[in-house]
C-alpha cells in the first residue's frame, strides 16, 4: 500500500548516510587571495556582485549572500606597544557553517532545506518557494533570497551547498580545491577536528595565545546550534570576524514565547466571557 503510494507519487528513497563531511578553515594560513571566492562562483555559476569599492581594506565583497557563498574578510589591526604601532592583518574565508542544529532548516516551512547524507545543509531549489523565513533565522547571516526580478534562480533561498554535486562524485568542493595554502581543508569531519586540535596546539606552543577553534563540539558556540560542519581556527575573538559568541537557535526559546502569546489570548477570552456572562 505504502509502496504503491510511493511509486504513484514518485517518492524516492533518501540516500543512505555517508561519512559526515565538512570544512576546516584555518585562518592562520589564509593569505587573502580570494581564489576560493572565484572558484565557488565559477563552479556554481553564480553571477558577479558588481564592482563596488567598499573602502574597507581589500574586502570589496562585503558579506556572504544569495550569490556569494565564500567571502574573504580582511581585518586590519593595530595595537600600541613600546615603540609605536604593532600591526597585523587577519584574513578569513567565511562560509555557511552547516550547523548540526541549523536554524534555517528548522525555520523552513516547505521542507526545501534538508540535511544531506553528508550531514550538510542543502536548499532544494525546486521546492523552495521563497518565503524568506530562513533569511533572518540564520544567526550567521549566511542564507539569502535572490531578487525576484533577477536572472539567477530568481526568488528562492541560496547558500553554500558544500558542493553537494561534487561530493556525489567524490570530488573536493571547489573552494577547498583551489585554496593554495590549505587554509580551507575539506574532509571527514572527525578527522578534520583532530587536525584542528593538533594545529591549535602547534600555534599555542608558538605563542599565539589568542588562537582558538570556533564551532567544535566542545566549544561554547555549539551550545545552541550544535557543532559546525564548517568550523574555523581563529586568531582573535569571534566578534572580530563578525561571528556571534553564542549563535542562537530560535527554537530554544519558542515555547516560552508561545506561552506568553497563549496567556494573553486565554486571558482575553476569560475577561470577555465574564463581561458577557450572567446577562443571558
Amino acid at each position, binding site marked *: 500500500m505504502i509502496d504503491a503510494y510511493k511509486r504513484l507519487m514518485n517518492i524516492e528513497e533518501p540516500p543512505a548516510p555517508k561519512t559526515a563531511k565538512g570544512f576546516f578553515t584555518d585562518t592562520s594560513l589564509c593569505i587573502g587571495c580570494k581564489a576560493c571566492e572565484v572558484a565557488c562562483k565559477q563552479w556554481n555559476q553564480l553571477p558577479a556582485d558588481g564592482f563596488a569599492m567598499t573602502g574597507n581594506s581589500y574586502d570589496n565583497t562585503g558579506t556572504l549572500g544569495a550569490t556569494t557563498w565564500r567571502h574573504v574578510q580582511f581585518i586590519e589591526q593595530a595595537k600600541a606597544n613600546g615603540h609605536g604601532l604593532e600591526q597585523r592583518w587577519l584574513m578569513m574565508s567565511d562560509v555557511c557553517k552547516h550547523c548540526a542544529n541549523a536554524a534555517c532548516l528548522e525555520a523552513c516551512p516547505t521542507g526545501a532545506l534538508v540535511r544531506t547524507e553528508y550531514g550538510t545543509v542543502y536548499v532544494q531549489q525546486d521546492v523552495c518557494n521563497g518565503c524568506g523565513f530562513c533569511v533572518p533565522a540564520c544567526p550567521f547571516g549566511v542564507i539569502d533570497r535572490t531578487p525576484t526580478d533577477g536572472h539567477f534562480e530568481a526568488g528562492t533561498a541560496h547558500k553554500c551547498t558544500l558542493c553537494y554535486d561534487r561530493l556525489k562524485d567524490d570530488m573536493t568542493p571547489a573552494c577547498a580545491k583551489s585554496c593554495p595554502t590549505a587554509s580551507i581543508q575539506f574532509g571527514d569531519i572527525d578527522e578534520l577536528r583532530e587536525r584542528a586540535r593538533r594545529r591549535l596546539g602547534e600555534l599555542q606552543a608558538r605563542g599565539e595565545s589568542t588562537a582558538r577553534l570556533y564551532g567544535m563540539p566542545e566549544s561554547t558556540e555549539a551550545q545552541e546550534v550544535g557543532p559546525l560542519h564548517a568550523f574555523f581556527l581563529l586568531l582573535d575573538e569571534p566578534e572580530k570576524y563578525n561571528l556571534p559568541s553564542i549563535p542562537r537557535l530560535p527554537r530554544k526559546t519558542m515555547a516560552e514565547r508561545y506561552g506568553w502569546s497563549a496567556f494573553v489570548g486565554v486571558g482575553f477570552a476569560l475577561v470577555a466571557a465574564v463581561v458577557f456572562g450572567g*446577562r443571558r
Partner: protein
Amino acid sequence: MIENQRREGYYDYPVIRRPVWTWEIPAYFWLGGIASGAYLTASLAQRFGSKDDRQYAADGFYLAAAALVPCAPLLTADLGRPERFHHMLRIFKPLSPMNLGAWTLTAFTPLAFARAAARAAETGLLRGPLGVLTRLIPKTLVELTGTLLGLTLAGYTGVLLAATNVPLWARSKLLGGVFMASAMSSGSAAVGLAAARRRAPDATLHRFATIESAAGLGELAILTGYLAQSGKTARPLTAGRLAAPFWVAAVGAGTLLPLLLHRMAGRRQGRPLRILSSAAAMCTIAGSLALRWSIFEAGKISSEDQAASFELSSD
C-alpha cells in the same frame, strides 16, 4: 585602521541578513489579527452573552470572513515564487511557525466562512437550497474549533518574528503576546464598530466597549513589558524614523486615545455613546496596523545593528 580597532565587529557590517519581507506581511498580521479577534468576540458572545449581545456580536463572523479574504493573497504575493505557495502545505511541520501559520490559515478560513454563512442563513440573508444546507452546519462545534484556530492565528505571528535572530523581535519573550493583544483589541473593536453602526442597544455597546478597553489595557501592559525587556535593542522602534508612527499612531492614537474615549462614553447613551464608541474603535483598529507596521519596519533597521546582534547572542 585604528578606528576599526575601536569597534567590536568586522567594520560595521551586520551580523545577520536583513529580512526580505515587504508591506504585505504587516498588512496580513493586521487583517489576520482582526479576523481572529472578531471571531473570538463573536463566539464568546454566542456562548455567554445576552440576546442582544448574541445578535449584534454575530456580525463578527462576517467581519472575520471578510478580513480573511485578502490574507492568503497577501502571503502569496510576498513569496519569492508565488506560484509555489502550495509548497507550504506539502509537509506538516509545526516546529516552523511559518508552516504552522499556513496550516492554521488554511483551516481557519473555511471555518470562518461556514460560520458566516450559517449566520446569513439565520437572518434570512441566505435563502433557498443553499440556505437550508447551511442551516445544517454545527454552529457550536464550528465556533469552538474556530476559536482555537483563531487564537493560534493571532498568536503565531508575533512568535514567528520572535523565532528569528533579529534583535528587536527576538530579545523579548513578549512579542507574541503583544501581537495577540493587538489582535484581540482590534478584533473586538471591529465588532463594537459594526454594532454601533447598526444602532445596538446601549447596554450591549457598553459591554463591547468594556471588552475592547480590557484588551487595550492588556496591550498597554504587555507592550510596556516588551519594551522593558528589549531595553536598548528597542531603539529602532522608540527613536528615529519609526518613533512617530510607534508613539503617536500605535501607542497614543491606537491605544491611549480609545481608552480615553471609551471612558468618556462611560455613562452616555444613544447617539453620543455610538459616536464615541465608533471613534474609539476606529482608533484601535488603525492603531493595530500602526503597531504591526512599525515593529515590522523597525526590525529591518534592527537587523543591521551589529552591536545589538552581538548582545543578543552573548547571553
